[in-house]
């Protein structure tokens, strides 16, 4: 295992070292110590390596991730795993605003709570939150799954396209064009796999499913040219 002291060696050295890891690298395990809330830790990775960050991070941790597994042993700041393409990011603590925003693929697991705008404009990422999520989550979400074991804040799924949202607890309010939908056997199967992947101790049958009513401008054929 490689250990990297972020405070001593600096962010640029960290990210360029991680970017230099090829697909067949032998240095597959990395531990980052002294993150101290720094921004942009382990962004833009593109190798099947595992990173363990020992502490809390600032903005944009593990953004644009491909292939890599990033575990954060603490809480994360705004924009964590933003625009992730593939791989896995696991946060032991809480996540600030817009976690997993615009993510195209991969899995983001948040073991604490996520705050506002979680999964905003998500495009295929799977986001699994053990706790609660804040307001305007999954705003304009296009594809992928958002699983919330706790409660959801105001305006959940506003202007939603085709993403699936599963919530176990209460929803403070639904956003425009977001409705509760029937939980069919295929959804139970999808959710069971997601809960297992996210390490959640919850039963799929306890969740409700929310999705797009497909009534907004872009969905209405009469609006077409």
């Amino acid at each position: 295992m490689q250990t990297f002291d972020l405070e001593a060696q600096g962010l640029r050295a960290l990210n360029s070292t991680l970017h230099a890891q090829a697909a067949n690298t032998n240095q597959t395990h990395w531990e980052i110590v002294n993150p101290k809330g720094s921004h942009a830790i382990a962004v833009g990775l593109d190798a099947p390596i595992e990173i363990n960050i020992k502490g809390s991070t600032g903005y944009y941790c593990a953004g644009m991730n491909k292939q890599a597994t990033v575990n954060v042993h603490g809480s994360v700041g705004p924009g964590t795993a933003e625009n992730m393409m593939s791989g896995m990011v696991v946060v032991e603590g809480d996540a600030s605003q817009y976690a997993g925003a615009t993510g195209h693929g991969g899995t983001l697991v948040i073991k604490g709570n996520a705050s506002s705008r979680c999964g905003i404009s998500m495009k295929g990422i799977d986001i699994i939150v053990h706790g609660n999520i804040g307001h305007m989550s999954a705003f304009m979400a296009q594809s992928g799954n958002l699983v919330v074991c706790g409660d959801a804040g105001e305006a959940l799924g506003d202007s939603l396209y085709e993403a699936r949202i599963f919530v176990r607890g209460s929803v403070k309010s639904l956003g425009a064009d977001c409705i509760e939908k029937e939980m069919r056997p295929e959804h139970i199967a999808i959710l069971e796999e997601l809960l297992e992947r996210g390490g959640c101790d919850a039963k799929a049958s306890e969740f409700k499913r929310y999705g797009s009513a497909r009534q907004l401008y872009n969905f209405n054929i009469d609006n077409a040219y």
Partner: protein
Amino acid sequence: MCGIVGLFLKDATLEPQLGDMLTDMLITMTDRGPDSAGIAIYGDESKGNARLTVQSNTPNVDFAKLDSDLSERVQGKVSITLKDTHAVITLQADQVASAREILSEIRPDVRVMSHGSTLEIYKEVGLPKNVADRFDVRKMSGTHGIGHTRMATESAVTTMGAHPFNTGIDQCLVHNGSLSNHNSLRRKLRRLGVHIETENDTEVGAAYLTWKMQTGSTLGEALTSSLDDLDGFFTFVVGTKDGFGVVRDPIACKPAVMAETDQYVAFGSEYRALVNLPGIEDAKVWEPEPATVYFWSHNAAPTAQEKAA
């Protein structure tokens, strides 16, 4: 962007280190606001006395013999402590009103930064580190304090545009965000006779809170009504003689992190600002909820009151 830091001590043994801890937190937030910086610090009280922190661009001229000139006019004891472009005038609490009138007459270029019994506000244009050095903030002790690093968006980079703003006796406000209805609100408040000096949006927010409290609201009520009357983005941190409070607008896009231990409650725009506080590894760390007024006081239990939507 802007950076905010705040520290409210529960453990009195940390009081001599307040200025030092706040300075480190402030310097960490330089990236968020390199234009100007300011700090409000709540120190010792001397019974029956009040403090005016004042500023001048020509301190050598304006502060020369200011104590004796003021003392003669108010017919009371006046002492003065100089700190770079600022000075702290100590005088009898019941003579403050007349002293301020006299001050504007005999030293028209001197600006009052704060008025209180324990509060002092220091703020200037420049990097946070340089501003903290100029006023020797590291050596200050106190019970609680608030700091701000500014990246101006709504008005000019000037001393008077820097934060914190004094909103009433021993009260101050710092702001991260931008208010979009400050012009109309400024006109409204000026019509009601409220003095607003600059074109700065936060000064209007501060004047609004002052006006609410002068017309019968408590600080908590004033903060709650600000959620209806102020349009725009804001994370506010307010200081009072015995506590500090936090409120974020309902959209809450301006960042905020809080930490609490048995020794302190701390606020930072980012977690980075808190990482060197004692015992932070085991602190309760959380993001304050939108549209919720939080308050900690040395004289009462902490409160978190969510405004009904």
